[in-house]
């Protein structure tokens, strides 16, 4: 179900937990990793590959009811939890 609530600071953690849960379940399960920090780079740590980018973006689009353009598939928007959260918030803000 899409996130339709007004996004505020309280929702930052809610967004982060949803994305973190997806990353853990799809990319880290069975890897032995037991933590993921907000600034951890998905690519530098080898957490996400090219297929993973596609899976992550599809998840974000569906979960938060936003549309991500190919031009927005850049490290500044997607390479860590702390980059994804503000990106989603910006997209939700622009969607209205």
């Amino acid at each position, binding site marked *: 179900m899409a996130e339709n609530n007004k996004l505020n600071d309280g929702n930052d953690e809610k967004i982060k937990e949803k994305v973190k849960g997806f990353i853990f379940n799809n990319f880290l399960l069975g890897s032995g990793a037991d933590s993921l920090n907000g600034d951890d780079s998905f690519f530098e740590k080898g957490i996400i590959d090219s*297929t993973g980018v596609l*899976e992550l973006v*599809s998840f974000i689009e569906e979960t938060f009811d936003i549309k991500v353009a*190919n*031009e927005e*598939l850049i490290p500044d928007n997607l390479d860590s939890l702390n980059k994804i959260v503000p990106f989603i918030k910006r997209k939700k803000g622009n969607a209205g």
Partner: protein
Amino acid sequence: MNKQHLPKNTLVGTGVDIIGIKRFGKAVEERRERFLNRIFTTAELSYCNKKVDRIQHLAARFACKEAVSKALKMNWNKGLNWKDIEVINNPSGEPWVRLKGQAKETANHLKIEEISLSLSHCQEYAMAMAVILKNTKNGRKQ
């Protein structure tokens, strides 16, 4: 004939990629059109949808796109558009690539003459290799 006057192709880059079929198939099943339409052109989907095991063929094409982008040394700082690298089969079945957008700009900048593709797939994996050549006169880079 003096070989010194013959054009010579110079290697620009190589790229290889491997895709797990099971994982790729799961992503297609769960994300469906949204997932497929971001990666593949209408022609690519039409070609693969005719196959008995379309997931293997889709995964092989995705591996091709990744292999070509690696060979062109493209990074994702300007965004990722997988449709800019379209994998097509000629009448004999040989795969070749048609570039558009940023991929074409990169190829033009590098004066690419030829992109050779080879792909293979089985139940578990699909893989592809791309070899990119540029034409140089007398064997010297232009």
